[in-house]
């Protein structure tokens, strides 16, 4: 595992993996979309249940991407490893987009089902805070010219934001929320009907693979970008 921390080895290892991830993501997205639109309408939610097939994966991957950002930030701070810093940076934008999608699709589900676009309950608010952590991370990185300093400052913010992840996950258990408690990952097994489990799990796998593809591609791009900057700096010194 730590062998992959070598950028050259990482580039060699991920070269064949990246197109496989892209291909699998596209296939599973197509299959998941078909399953999502052919599943029966829910007896209570009606057709809005189809929003859940994209809302839940976006929210789960939004959390997962932040976990990747936070753990990478930890390795970047402790070991000062450029690949860990590149991994943290590469997770920020897709993570922010997925979290933003979770908020938007949640609002589009909430209006017909709850009668409101938004409530300040613990789950919705903690996910909004997660989204703001992503925006803060990207803004902080962009606001400091020295990339090393920007990376360290953003890594500290990334680590602080990890505190929010268990709050998001357990907010529905710790507080009385309008948002329903977990129905997929919960003690005693899932409460979902198999008719909804198949599209949901397929879309979760598809979103996971797509995030993996975007993340890996972006890390590889970041490694190349840093090499380009280094070569340009060397050429400028020699001139």
């Amino acid at each position, binding site marked *: 595992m730590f062998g992959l921390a070598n950028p050259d080895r990482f580039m060699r290892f991920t070269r064949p993996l990246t197109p496989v991830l892209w291909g699998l993501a596209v296939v599973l997205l197509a299959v998941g979309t078909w399953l999502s639109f052919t599943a029966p309408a829910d007896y209570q939610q*009606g*057709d*809005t249940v189809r929003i859940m097939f994209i809302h839940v994966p976006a929210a789960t991957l939004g959390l997962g991407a932040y976990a990747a950002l936070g753990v990478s930030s930890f390795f970047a701070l402790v070991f000062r490893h450029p690949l860990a810093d590149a991994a943290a940076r590469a997770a920020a934008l897709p993570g922010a987009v997925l979290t933003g*999608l979770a908020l938007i699709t949640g609002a589009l589900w909430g209006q017909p089902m709850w009668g409101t676009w938004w409530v300040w309950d613990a789950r919705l608010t903690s996910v909004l805070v997660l989204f703001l952590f992503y925006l803060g991370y990207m803004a902080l990185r962009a606001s400091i010219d020295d990339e090393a300093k920007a990376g360290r400052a953003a890594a500290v913010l990334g680590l602080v934001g990890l505190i929010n992840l268990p709050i998001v996950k357990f907010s529905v258990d710790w507080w009385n929320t309008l948002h329903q408690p977990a129905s997929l990952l919960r003690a005693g097994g899932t409460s979902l009907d198999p008719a909804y489990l198949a599209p949901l799990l397929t879309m979760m796998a598809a979103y996971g693979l*797509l995030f993996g593809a*975007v993340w890996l591609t972006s890390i590889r791009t970041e490694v190349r970008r840093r090499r380009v900057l280094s*070569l340009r700096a060397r050429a400028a010194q020699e001139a």
Partner: protein
Amino acid sequence: MLDLDMSPYGVFVWSSWAISAVALTAISLRALVAARRWKRELTRLEEARK
């Protein structure tokens, strides 16, 4: 069974899926375009150094 109308919730369902499709396509294209750009630039610089 495929029901594309989804009344009375069609506007909510289709908006959610459309926004998600646009956003996911955008981050995918951005990653792929940037990958191509920096790969080409690195190749150009490495060849120039030879």
